[in-house]
């Protein structure tokens, strides 16, 4: 069948045989002039036929029914850019959610890190307070020991250097304890510490009076807070001993002096 022989009206009516429909579609696709014109004319005929139908008045309510249905209908066909935004909304939401998740993870990680740092600072502050407390206690002990020096009954022993660079110092002994103040003290041998000894009348063995170490400048200050029978003490001595001290001297005597 040639293009001129086709019944394009049947194509427009939707009643053409399937094979012929496919042929017309193919011709229209490649802009066949005869078929394009034929279909356009057939559409005019179809439109004209519609205008010949008997007149029927629609019911009064139909207009409002349609407008109500439109108001309640699903969202209308969106403009292109709306459609694009709508289609992008899901991936953008996913990306935003992931970004939020990453930010939250980062935030909580940072919070945990800050918590750990705060805990470290709290521990450090507590340690500082402990050190301060110990220093204050030691200061109080020293002040108490110093206050005892001028009191009646306090006796002392003095280390007087006979040659330069020899240690010098004093030991003040009273009934509640003693105070040692020294300078020019050498460092004790490796793995040893200094221990102070008291020699009393009627006692064959010396009495341990505490251990101490000089600082880097060779200064030493040692306080013992124990009851001492001051009158019986006749001499003091300092030896180097194992760390923590011993009950009877074993090391070399560094200094010794008579108590006056």
């Amino acid at each position, binding site marked *: 069948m040639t293009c001129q022989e086709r019944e394009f009206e049947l194509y427009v009516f939707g009643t053409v*045989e399937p094979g012929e429909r496919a042929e017309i579609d193919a011709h229209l696709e490649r802009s066949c002039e005869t078929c394009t014109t034929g279909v356009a004319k057939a559409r005019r005929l179809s439109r*004209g036929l*519609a*205008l010949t139908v008997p*007149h029927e008045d629609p019911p009064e309510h139909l207009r409002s029914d*349609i407008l109500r*249905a439109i108001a309640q209908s699903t969202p*209308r066909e969106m403009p292109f850019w709306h459609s694009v935004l709508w289609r992008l909304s899901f991936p953008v939401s996913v990306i935003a959610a992931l970004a939020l998740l990453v930010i939250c993870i980062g935030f909580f990680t940072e919070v945990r890190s800050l918590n750990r740092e705060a805990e470290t600072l709290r521990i450090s502050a507590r340690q500082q307070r402990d050190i301060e407390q110990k220093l204050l206690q030691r200061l109080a002990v020293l002040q108490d020991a110093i206050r005892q020096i001028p009191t009646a009954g306090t006796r002392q022993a003095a280390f007087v250097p006979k040659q330069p660079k020899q240690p010098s110092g004093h030991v003040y002994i009273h009934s509640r304890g003693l105070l040692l103040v020294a300078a020019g003290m050498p460092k004790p041998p490796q793995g040893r510490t200094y221990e102070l000894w008291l020699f009393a009348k009627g006692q064959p063995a010396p009495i341990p009076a505490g251990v101490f170490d000089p600082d880097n400048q060779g200064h030493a200050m040692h306080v013992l807070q124990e009851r001492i029978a001051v009158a019986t003490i006749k001499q003091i001595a300092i030896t180097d001993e194992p760390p923590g001290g011993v009950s009877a001297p074993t090391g070399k005597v560094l200094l010794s002096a008579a108590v006056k």
Partner: protein
Amino acid sequence: MSPLDLVFVGVALAAAREKDPYADAQRRDREEMAATARGDHRALGHLYDRYGRLVFSLAVRVVEDHHDAEEVTQDVFLRLWHHAAAFDPRRGDLISWLVAVTRNRSIDHLRSKVSRETDHWVPLPEGFEAHLRLVSEPAITGVEAAQRLDRALAALPSTHRTVLELAYYEGFAQSEIAERLALPLGTVKTWTRTALQALREAMHL
């Protein structure tokens, strides 16, 4: 009075007031479709006021039931609402689209109601772009041409008019018409060709 008469009267009255009534009708279509595309319910109401009677009349003619025709009319205007943004007045007129969609919806409705199964009826696409690609001429080509078409229909032998109406209003293929009327397929084809030729001549196509 048929919708065609109403159109003629409307065009004649418009012609009395203005030099180019068809251009005026197209301008109104264009403005109201643009407003409808923007979501203006009132614009759709105006379109219904102008074309609702035509859509409803065609639907009644096909489905032969006023209640069903209401459903079809509502369906057509809902489609118009949802596809208004795709309307391009440079490529064709609104009334052609309304006629094609109303006919398609009506025949679909009819087929679903009577469970008529057929592979023959394949309506053309209803989207504005696909439809208007093939329509480049005014819907109203002149009062005289339309009147000639009406007269040509009346002048057709009843047998010829019957096969034409079965195809146009019910979507029957020629083989189905032959089976339905117990006629040879060749006879149906001849009557159809003769009837269409008479209508083409009446419209000077």
